[in-house]
């Protein structure tokens, strides 16, 4: 559907270019992305090149920062009007909208987009009923497992519940196959919150109730208890507490983890024999659930592309955002990041070679649990990261750690 739209845009751009070849100066856009493995720097550069080829009057300068720098860079660049297009995480629209960092693009969104994009994906870019961009990366945490190790341990099916995961890991450990079978990304960073949120969704916990912290009891506490228990029991790789996602991937594709919680991108990279020692043995399922509470767990780790309020070229910026999020572009690069478009999931070209991933995605993406929506998310997250680490390191009990986090959350 969007193919036609983008072709139309393309046509318009060409016509414009032909009619007034020298009349208007080249527009230069600055776009901020993150350095990551899914939609890697090379991918984004290739997509952008295709865009500028189709729109010769627009030049796009790309900037890549690690995820940890994405928020601060976006905020700091307001002073210089630095970026026209920024990548933003699902947790930031509240703050960005409140502080007028991004422009409301609700009126620009076409009916085609509204209908074609998965409804769950739209929540990524919305706050207070307005849309601040188009979702671009649709992602949740999946449970990856090493088929060979599970087989050796005599395990026939991947775990359906978190308790079952612990049991299977224990079997693997007891049989001497791996010292520490589970790898997570629990560094003091947003990555730890993502893993925690996955567990919170499994335990049916709640971050906020009436705007006040509610994670210190119930499911929120159960989730942290599970993490601490898994860490203390030695089933979890103790280095998880300084891992980010790429560290998890390295350990997993080196064959040093039987289970790992990670994003979509790991599936095809860990299956690439050039990169990985476990190619062909990678299993993927939705993250497990909790008996009596949930069948599976998933969290919304999606990101969107938006236009900054300081951009002097919002129309060209929108053109770029529309191109980057178009179904054609997304299908072409669907190996490391799955499209936001519903119909892509039935497109044989997209599914081919990653049937297992698509099957897990269909279930996982439909059950994505959100991190809290609040303009003070950064503070809340910082406080929670500290709580998780303190509990893991045994500096505080999970109860006390979460209570302190609730007090320091700024809410």
């Amino acid at each position: 559907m969007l193919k036609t739209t983008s072709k139309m845009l393309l046509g318009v751009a060409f016509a414009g270019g032909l009619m007034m070849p020298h009349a208007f100066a080249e527009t230069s856009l600055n776009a901020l992305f993150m350095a990551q493995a899914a939609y890697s720097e090379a991918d984004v550069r290739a997509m952008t090149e295709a865009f500028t080829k189709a729109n010769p009057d627009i030049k796009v300068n790309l900037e890549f920062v690690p995820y940890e720098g994405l928020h601060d860079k976006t905020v700091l660049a307001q002073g210089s009007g630095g970026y026209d297009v920024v990548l933003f995480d699902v947790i930031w629209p509240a703050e960005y909208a409140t502080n007028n960092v991004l422009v409301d693009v609700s009126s620009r969104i076409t009916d085609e987009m509204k209908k074609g994009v998965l409804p769950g994906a739209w929540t990524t870019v919305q706050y207070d009923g307005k849309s601040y961009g188009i979702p671009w990366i649709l992602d949740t945490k999946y449970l990856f497992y090493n088929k060979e190790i599970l087989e050796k341990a005599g395990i026939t099916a991947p775990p359906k519940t978190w308790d079952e995961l612990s049991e299977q890991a224990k079997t693997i450990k007891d049989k001497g196959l791996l010292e520490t079978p589970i790898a997570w990304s629990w560094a003091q960073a947003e990555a730890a919150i993502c893993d925690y949120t996955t567990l919170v969704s499994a335990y049916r916990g709640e971050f906020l109730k009436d705007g006040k912290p509610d994670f210190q009891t119930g499911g929120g506490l159960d989730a942290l208890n599970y993490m601490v228990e898994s860490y203390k029991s030695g089933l979890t790789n103790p280095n998880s507490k300084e891992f980010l996602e790429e560290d998890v991937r390295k350990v997993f594709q080196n064959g040093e983890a039987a289970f790992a919680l990670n994003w979509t991108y790991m599936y095809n990279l860990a299956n690439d024999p050039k990169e990985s020692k476990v190619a062909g043995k990678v299993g993927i399922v939705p993250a497990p659930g909790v008996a009596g509470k949930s069948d599976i767990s998933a969290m919304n780790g999606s990101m969107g592309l938006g236009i900054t309020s300081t951009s002097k070229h919002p129309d060209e910026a929108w053109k770029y955002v529309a191109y980057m999020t178009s179904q054609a572009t997304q299908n072409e690069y669907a190996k490391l990041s799955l499209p936001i478009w519903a119909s892509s999931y039935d497109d044989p070209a997209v599914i081919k070679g990653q049937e297992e991933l698509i099957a897990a995605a269909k279930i996982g993406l439909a059950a994505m649990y959100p991190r809290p929506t609040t303009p003070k998310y950064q503070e809340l997250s910082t406080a929670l990261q500290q709580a998780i680490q303190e509990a893991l390191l045994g500096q505080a009990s999970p109860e006390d750690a979460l209570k302190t986090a609730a007090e320091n959350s700024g809410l």
Partner: protein
Amino acid sequence: MGPRSLAFTIFVHACALLLAVVILAPVAWLFVMSISPAADLSAKPLHWWPQEADFSRYKLLLSTVENSAGAAFTAALRNSIEVAGMATLAALAVAIPAGWAVSRTPSVGWSLSMVIATYMLPPVALAVPLYMGLARLGMLNNVFGLALVYLTILAPFTTWLMKSGFDTIPREIEAAAMMDGANLFQTLRRITLPLAMPVVATSALFAFLLAWDEFFYALLFTSDQRAKTLTVTIADLAGGRIADYGLIATAGVLAALPPVFIGLVMQRALISGLTSGGVKG
């Protein structure tokens, strides 16, 4: 010095060897990582020496193909050179007259002490107003804006070094030239400055190295290839989102080359600078 026992000689050599290893090992490892294939770097047990040296990462980072990772890196390299170069020249331009003034007229010396005292200010204490001020002037994410800020880090040091240098040049030489009818600026240009050239060179080296090393302001005040410096680029690479440790190491080697080269070649000048402030203080 008296004759030394054999045991003492052995002890000294052993310590010297240990020191050499401590100094060299980390730097050598950085270089080895930069030429090791990625698989070697994630091997267990670790491969300490690559079977085949792989220089492809240097080629990748130094390529100038538009819109590539190499272009981003070379842009940062250029920005670092520009910013450090401009800041150094500007620092010398303000430090030479000021250093001479304090050397010849010690009664104004207290103002230099005040300037040097700004060294105690943590950059975070100035960052917010500087950020807002640069934003108002449109000089955020701009090499000139960054160089202006760096100037204030470099100028106190260079002025102090220049003052120490001028102190060693006798006033009588200047007085003689003045008597021959030369005015102040002619005297400074023809007589004093040539004599102070070694100190000027030392100050310039120090200033350049200081500016090259700066990270905090660059992190806050730059956002893309137009002004981002090497230190920020490397911190971005090291941020944990790059799986190829060799690439991070390569960027580190490239960023370290200029200052290390300056350090090794110009060592005499640098050490004299390091100590002239210290010994006299």
